[in-house]
């Protein structure tokens, strides 16, 4: 369903959601746009550039005590980009058997239209498909917006505000035009490490192994248990974000490291994202949001690395650049 709304009604919509759910949206706080709980509507940035940290900051907070997270509360994630919505679904599929992360039923997803920038390549993995949200907000000319609903929950919320007009049959603007052919040879190429040893070594030589990419990736969900003895005599076990670039991640007893060199670690990152992830969850653990490109202090670019590994991806990425 398509609804035409104006700026005032958009505010009302977010207000309604905030009243019903614990709502998180991109907001400008202290000069940076971050995903945070909505307190006032004045500093909302619904149609912003991607935030540095994705939704995993909300669903999977760092340093939270085990067993203390409330698994039944309902939250709303407002202003997610479509690639993040796809990532969210893959993320929830990964944790479907655990109680660490909320269920899909407890999350209201309000996606918003994005402006593709030079770093993102969602069309390569099909993460530009407009799907998986409850409500999708699209900016029109002037102060006009359109809201598209994709579920009963979304329609119920929009019915609560006064709408000028509603259309049954209408689809949102596609984000990036591309074909639906996602058959790549990536899995095979990355599995054969021995044939590409020089290639991985060259990447590892350009990588600090700082783990910045794993901190910002919406689909990096490795964690460790941190045992903390507090000064007041109490102790607790926390969930702490981990990174496969950390020494403690691959080290076992007696200082034996399963992945001692940086080349092993960066290869493992790609292997998990594009081989193991595909086998376990049926999707690549990458939606092409481009956050790791922005975050990398060593100027490594996943687009170039994937292009070098697969001709078809290279054609799509470079072809897309020529058009824009």
């Amino acid at each position, binding site marked *: 369903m398509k609804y035409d709304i104006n700026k005032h009604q958009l505010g009302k919509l977010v207000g309604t959601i905030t009243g019903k759910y614990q709502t998180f949206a991109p907001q400008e706080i202290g000069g940076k746009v971050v995903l945070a709980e909505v307190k006032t509507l004045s500093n909302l940035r619904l149609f912003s550039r991607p935030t540095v940290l994705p939704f995993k900051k909300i669903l999977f907070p760092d340093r939270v005590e085990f067993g203390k997270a409330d698994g039944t509360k309902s939250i709303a994630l407002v202003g997610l980009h479509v690639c993040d919505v796809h990532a969210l679904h893959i993320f929830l599929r990964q944790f479907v058997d655990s109680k660490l992360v909320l269920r899909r039923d407890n999350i209201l997803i309000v996606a918003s239209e994005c402006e593709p920038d030079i770093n993102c390549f969602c069309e390569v993995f099909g993460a530009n498909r407009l799907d998986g949200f409850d409500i999708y907000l699209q900016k029109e000319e002037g102060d006009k917006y359109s809201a598209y609903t994709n579920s009963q929950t979304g329609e119920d919320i929009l019915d609560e505000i006064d709408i000028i007009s509603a259309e049954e049959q209408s689809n949102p603007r596609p984000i990036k035009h591309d074909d639906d052919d996602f058959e790549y040879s990536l899995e095979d190429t990355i599995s054969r490490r021995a044939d590409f040893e020089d290639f991985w070594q060259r990447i590892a*030589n350009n990588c600090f*192994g700082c783990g*910045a990419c794993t901190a910002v990736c919406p689909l990096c969900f490795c964690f460790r248990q941190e045992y903390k*003895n507090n*000064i007041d005599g109490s102790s607790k076990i926390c969930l702490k974000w981990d990174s496969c670039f950390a020494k403690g991640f691959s080290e076992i007893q007696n200082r034996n490291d399963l992945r001692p060199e940086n080349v092993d670690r960066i290869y493992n990152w790609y292997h998990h994202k594009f081989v193991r992830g595909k086998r376990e969850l049926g999707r690549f653990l990458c939606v092409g949001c481009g956050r790791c490109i922005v975050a990398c*202090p*060593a*100027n490594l670019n996943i687009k170039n690395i994937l292009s070098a590994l697969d001709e078809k991806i290279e054609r799509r990425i470079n072809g897309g650049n020529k058009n824009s």
Partner: protein
Amino acid sequence: MKPYPKKTLGIYSLTCCEGCQFEILKDYDDFSQLLKYYDVRNFRLGQEENLPGPFDVSLVEGTPESKEEYTLLREIRKTSAIVIVIGSCAHLGGIQSERNSLPKKMTLAKDVVSIPEVINTDFIVPGCPISHKELFAFLMDIYWNKVPTLHDLAVCFECRQNENQCLLKEGKPCLGPITRGGCDSICVNGGEACYGCRGATDQADFAKMKEILKPIISDEDSTNMMTIYGDYECEWKRRTDEGK
């Protein structure tokens, strides 16, 4: 819950600004909590009556300069079960180790050496100054007979967790990628670059860091930046030697 008796603690200061000792006293609530687990026998800045060792744990800050300080340092090692070096001076040599790179005619004093070059140490709490929270977490782990560990990732990881934009991408020099994290990227949160007070990570690549800094600052400046808190490379080499 206190199944163990109090451990004895000595806090010593060699040549330095004594900022790390102030950091221990910074939050008196936390310090008074610590006194429930530790019997502080020697702490020149904090109390009048100071007893000599032996101690279960000794904290040492600063670098040894005079003959007396070298003697004291060896004495501390002999009489303490665990020696923890605290702060960049003790750990890497600190600001005063800039003296080592001056021509020998300009200075009469000997080279500044960090404490791990003089005696065997057990643990390091890095930082300039240290964070009292990190130090007290170390001491609590030791009280409960658990081996304390340092953060094993670079500052960049925490910097992204705090949602900062990369300074290097904005064309500002920063040593975050090769510096050991655990500080919660406090400098970058405040808009300042990372100067590497916590020493190098295990896989720090200095040549690569210089290459990244090349378009931003001159080669000489990047070398200066990387040696503000003592000779990074030395510390890194020593650690890799220990690993083998």
